[in-house]
């Protein structure tokens, strides 16, 4: 198919319209030549002989007359090979590290296909991150999609790096483990920070990095996570690897989607985002999981910054409706100097119920987690009251809650960027904190669990 179409009918934002096209197919790739420079685009609407094309590199410098366009006869495909490990690619999967071509074993449509729900395996394996608040209260499970809801200026990148460095993803060693990292619209130094930390922790040769930086074309961002997930699926389902996928920043991704939608003149729903934002995000997040008859897994940690720290904004909101929980970072904690500034109350891991407790982590895990949540929720009530009547006026029990709240934040939530705690340490610490409260207050615990764990074991008494 070597027909070239000269010129364009219309240009609008990142979109161009080509007229007189014969034999175009929906979502087919188009190569647009402007002078000596070639750009890639994708057909997103066809009407008769008119095609609306989304140009990945943007439309700057394009006029109605200075282009030649050629249909490429196929949708956008990602070349796949084990050689991708250790490589840095641009937002549409072309190497940018100067280490040469990659010879693909196969290539696949980046949109992927929906996983058949009957072929999924329900995720149950605990991933120890060494971070108490996560392991204890928002447990990450292999095959889960668990986003980090953050705000500008918060240490979500450090947290992601710490998770990658400390995560025990495989039961045995780590040779079966890979990281797929997709940067969308982030600053150069952020991408560099990630690269260096991967290098420092010695995992760089197991990382595939996709880089669409803040000054890279916006439209390219639309395909970056899809390219990344196509690689992740290849590593997990063809090669049996456990893949951790980090997508950052999903907010930049959604904004790119909004930009294209408004260029198309589509009717917006909330805050200008297109009505299909939910389905679109789902087509990314649902590509996490485990499947029957296959060793590998895809665990996703998407990172997004909440505009105005507003959790009801469409991006975090629709993300929360799709993912299996969320880790919420909170400015107020960061201001108090707490790292990681995780607010556990709005955070949740929906898959933890099946991956913790006897046979997985430890028998008492669900109970401690429940009680810590309930007691810490009560701390909020007491604090609200204290702010009205003053801490001194509180009842003796309420004073204990105030103390519990402080200790919980300073010892359980807060931990050093380098500190890697075992799940046993985390749970023991949880009990230590619960002992700051009288037994009668622990209404989520059954008497036998209290007897077994609350009462300080004789042998350990000396420790306190």
């Amino acid at each position: 198919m070597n027909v070239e179409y000269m010129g364009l009918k219309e240009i609008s934002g990142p979109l161009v319209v080509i007229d007189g096209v014969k034999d175009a197919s929906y979502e087919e790739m188009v190569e647009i030549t402007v002078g000596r420079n070639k750009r890639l685009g994708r057909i997103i609407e066809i009407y008769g002989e008119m095609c609306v094309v989304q140009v990945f590199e943007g439309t700057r410098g394009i006029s109605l007359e200075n282009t030649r366009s050629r249909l490429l006869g196929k949708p956008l495909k990602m070349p796949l090979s084990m050689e991708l490990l250790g490589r840095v690619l641009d937002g549409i999967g072309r190497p940018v590290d100067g280490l040469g071509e990659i010879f693909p074993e196969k290539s696949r449509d980046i949109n992927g296909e929906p996983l058949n729900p009957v072929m999924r395996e329900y995720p149950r394996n605990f991933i120890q991150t060494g971070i108490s608040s996560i392991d204890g209260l928002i447990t990450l499970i292999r095959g889960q999609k668990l986003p980090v809801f953050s705000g500008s200026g918060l240490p979500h990148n450090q947290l992601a790096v710490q998770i990658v460095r400390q995560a025990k993803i495989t039961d045995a060693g780590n040779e079966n483990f890979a990281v797929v990292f997709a940067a969308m619209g982030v600053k150069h130094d952020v991408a560099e920070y990630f690269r260096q930390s991967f290098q420092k922790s010695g995992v760089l040769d197991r990382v595939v990095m996709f880089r669409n930086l803040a000054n890279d074309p916006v439209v390219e961002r639309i395909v970056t996570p899809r390219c990344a997930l196509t690689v992740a699926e290849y590593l997990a389902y063809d090669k049996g690897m456990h893949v951790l996928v980090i997508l950052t920043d999903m907010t930049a991704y959604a904004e790119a989607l909004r930009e294209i939608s408004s260029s198309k003149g589509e009717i917006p729903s909330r805050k200008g985002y297109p009505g299909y934002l939910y389905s679109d995000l789902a087509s990314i997040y649902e590509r996490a999981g485990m499947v029957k008859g296959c060793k590998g897994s895809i665990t996703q940690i998407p990172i997004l910054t909440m505009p105005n720290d507003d959790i009801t904004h469409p991006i975090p909101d629709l993300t929360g409706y799709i993912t299996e929980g969320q880790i919420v970072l909170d400015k107020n904690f960061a201001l108090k100097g707490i790292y990681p500034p995780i607010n556990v109350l709005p955070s949740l891991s929906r898959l933890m119920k099946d991956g913790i407790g006897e046979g997985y982590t430890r028998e008492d895990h669900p109970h401690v987690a429940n009680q810590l949540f309930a007691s810490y929720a009560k701390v909020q009530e007491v604090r609200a009251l204290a702010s009205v009547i003053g801490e001194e006026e509180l009842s003796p029990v309420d004073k204990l809650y105030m103390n519990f709240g402080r200790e919980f934040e300073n010892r359980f939530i807060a931990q050093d960027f380098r500190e890697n705690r075992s799940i046993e340490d985390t749970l023991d610490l949880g009990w230590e904190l619960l002992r700051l409260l009288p037994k009668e207050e622990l209404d989520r615990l059954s008497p036998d669990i209290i007897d077994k764990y609350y009462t300080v074991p004789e042998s350990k008494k000396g420790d306190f």
Partner: protein
Amino acid sequence: MENSSHGTIYGINGPVIKVRGNHAFQMYEMVLVGHDRLIGEVIRVFETETIVQVYENTTGLKPGEPVISTGKPLTVKLGPGIIGNVFDGIERPLERIAEKTGIFIKRGSIMDNLDRNKLWHVRMLARPGDYVNQGEFIAEVKETESVIHKIMVPPGIKGEVIEAVGDGEYNIDQTIVKVRDGKTIHNLSLVQEWPVREPRPYYHRLPLNIPLITGQRIIDTLFPMAKGGAAAIPGGFGTGKTLTQHQLAKWANADIIVYVGCGERGNEITEVLEDFPKLVDPRTGRPLMERTVLIGNTSNMPVAAREASIYTGITLAEYYRDMGYDVAIMADSTSRWAEALREISGRLEEMPAEEGFPAYLPSRLSEFYERAGRVENFNKTEGSVSIIGAVSPQGGDFSEPVTQNTKRFVRCFWALDKALAYTRHYPAINWTNSYSEYSQELSEWYSVNAHPEFMDKKAKISRILQEEEKLLDIVKLIGSDILPDEQKLVLETARAIRQGFLQQNAYHEQDTYVPIKKQYLMMDSILRFYEKAVKLVSIGVPVSVIRKSGAFEELIRIKYNIPNDDFSAFEDLNGRLEKILEEIEAEYKK
């Protein structure tokens, strides 16, 4: 185009296809799109163009490819083999798709909805010479150990049975009965077809005066659902919509469960598939999967099929209702269905009403919820379809269009609350915003079948919770220490009600499902204790003394300590609590 049953693709925009070259397409007709014969449905007919929504991914389609008319609307196949199965939004069996295309769903997989090779053991009811009417049972098949599938005369057919096979093994295609209606002869098999967008007919509606018992205390006691009723569960993400739906699918006393995963997570379908075969139906002692059918059109599957999934589900439900069964259908989430409508509408460039939703959203919602009901069927049996729809309001804000419009068409509203969920108070159903308009009509049933004083106790429990609500406003400002003791007692009792009665742990073996009798006895114990404690407080006993006795903790732990199948322990408990109070009284009087 000369061929009148063909059109050709002219435009493509996501799942929406514009077709030219044929003006004979009918509204809502099913069509086959492109060389791969993707299934589609006609949704608009204009003078020069026909608009089709395609139930599969349209990548790679080209203008000029054919669109073939089928002459019939989007239908489902109704017959044995539905129960225990998992289908996509247009009734394609996902297990069979997996056999063909592996872990991913590839498109263009046209296949039989029901297994056509399987032989069913058929027991014949119709005999030659019988005169049969629509809906009448002509045969029976044991579909699963728990479900007898009645083979019925399809709606609109009546006449004399002129031939009938004997009992034996038949597949779904074989004719088992021939019926003559005047000059026409109808060949009836085990299967019939029905257009999903059309409600199946029934003889007449019956009053909604029997509860759908769910084993969930806050629902059965405070906000009960009627068999044949419609309920909504709205709530922000992570507040417990899906878990509540799963709980109802597991424990509601319906004969058949239709679970529609509409635009939600794949893993949630997987979870049902893993759990239900292992869980035992308390009424039949058989695995729950034997009364359940799943429709899974997850969020990453095609959006047009998501739109259809709700109708497919409700049509299956009505079909089993026609056999005289009580059917409950869970739709998780109706918001995703509404969004599918919005997406298609947006691609058609229709004038939107609120938040981009089409102006016909309310009428579509009402048509759907109207398909709930308890009815007398043509065959004289009684059956019901109860609808429980999850609603996922954007930003967790109940003032958005889907929640608001749903509210108009359901009479049970179980409002999930983020604040409760954050404190892990589950189920996070808010007892002040929720309501059930069925309470009144169901009160007689409760008085007769649960306990004569059931409604009375329920009212008292509600009253204590209301009082607590008022008191908490004061406590927020000044703390609870300076409240008078009778009010402190209200707070303590309300706490016991919240933690001991309203909170229910879905993951606890005993607490996950609680029989209605036990619900009554729990209320009874709490109220007995409260009423006696009120007397003590009135003679000056401080609440702190009562609190120290550990009695409230005992009340809170009833759910774990007293098993579901042995209520004798209630008497001991009541006696013990009474003694505690007597001792306190004696001590105080000294």
